[in-house]
């Protein structure tokens, strides 16, 4: 306990604080970019997956395979696989880019499922009415289905975003300077692990908790609408 109090001032040095805040930023960025890309691509995948034309069957199969695979592999394994593929293919040296690619691939798979669920939650009668009035598949999605599906998509999607922030901790294993890795660095520097990892836990909490509350608030708002 005394060690903690002893170390506290040098631990909370300006350099350390900035270091940790930067790392928090990286964590947040990884999750945000992953989810934004994941949402865009995931929506595209969901739309194509629900098409009925026979020509697009190979595409639909590919999409199913892709989403099932990336949802059934641990984050760590996906990360390492991409890492080694990029390393061997000499594609890029940047750890950050490798991490971003991985988070995007994973987020896309998960979010496309969420979007798909949302689209399926809209009653078939809405599709029928639009079809009878000659709406095309894409017109129906744009004018009728998506505006209604959004209510069902947003809560789990946002929830996933918050969950994803925690998953990014694994990016520390390839050396990306996010929050967990920053913790390891400080721990290796000799600071008390209780102090270091306790602080890291608190910082993750500060990142995640307000978003969680915001999400719950939005859920209540959407529910009453």
């Amino acid at each position, binding site marked *: 306990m005394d*060690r903690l109090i002893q170390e506290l001032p040098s631990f909370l040095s300006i350099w350390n604080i900035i270091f940790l805040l930067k790392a928090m930023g990286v964590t947040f960025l990884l999750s945000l970019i992953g989810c934004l890309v994941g949402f865009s691509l995931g929506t595209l995948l969901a739309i194509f997956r629900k098409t009925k034309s026979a020509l697009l069957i190979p595409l639909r199969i590919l999409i*199913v395979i892709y989403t*099932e*695979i990336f949802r*059934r*592999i*641990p*984050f*760590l*394994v*996906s990360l*390492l*696989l991409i890492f*080694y*593929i990029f*390393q*061997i*293919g*000499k594609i890029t040296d940047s750890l950050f880019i490798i991490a971003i690619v991985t988070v995007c691939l994973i987020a896309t798979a998960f979010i496309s499922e969420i979007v*798909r669920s949302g689209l399926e939650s809209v009653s078939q009668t809405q599709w029928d009415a639009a079809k009878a009035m000659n709406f095309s598949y894409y017109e129906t999605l744009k004018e009728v289905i998506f505006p209604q599906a959004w209510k069902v998509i947003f809560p789990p999607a946002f929830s996933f975003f*918050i969950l994803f922030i*925690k*998953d990014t*901790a*694994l990016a*520390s*294993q390839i050396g990306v300077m996010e929050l*967990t890795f920053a*913790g*390891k660095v400080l*721990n290796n520097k000799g600071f*008390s*692990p*209780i102090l270091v*990892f*306790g602080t*890291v*836990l608190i910082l*993750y*909490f500060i990142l*995640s*908790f307000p978003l*969680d509350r915001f999400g719950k608030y939005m859920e209540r708002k959407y529910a009453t609408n």
Partner: protein
Amino acid sequence: MGYTLIYSQVTEYIPYLLAGAWISLQIVILAFSAGMFFGLILASIRTFGNLTLRRTVIFYVTFFTNTPQLVQIYFLFFALPEIGILLSPFVAVLIGMTLNAAAYMCEIQRAGFLSIRQNELDAARTMSFSIVQQVRFVILPHIMKVLFPPLSNHYILMTLGTSMAAIFGVEELTGRAFNINAETFRSVEIFSITALVYIIITFIATLLLAIIGKYFFKAKIRIIQ
């Protein structure tokens, strides 16, 4: 590119790798069961306890669901020795996963409690069911049916979560992949095989859970769509 995929060089290691899957299974079953047990206790306190107890549980659950499991285990593994508690990697991972699981399962099970509708209880009461009979014939079956999908889902998530044990040197599936990689440097081959094993494991698990769900609890789970 200068690198060719040579899967033959790693085939001799596959039995070793697969044996790791067995360790992963042990971890997840232990952590899941313990987590469910403690989660139930927490959920009960949260629903029926007095204000202070409820607040404590809320704090615990909020904290564990807003911070990454990896960092929680880091804390247990590196910080506890400071106060004299030395945990082996396996135990640290187990405890970490259990504590984490208990928090999530508390929420899941609490939702189950709350889903019992008053009219079901009323109906049972008017038919002169005793409290025990109410629990056995009305409440439990209903709760099991409601809880089965989210708990199954969490089980799958935990199965994937066991991969972080590798970071602490536990020789489960991912851990063994690390070892093989260190020996043969055939990274892409090894990790792609590891990924495949995880996919197969989760597929089998989902299938089994779907069957159990259908026959024992009449709860339906989607395997693939």
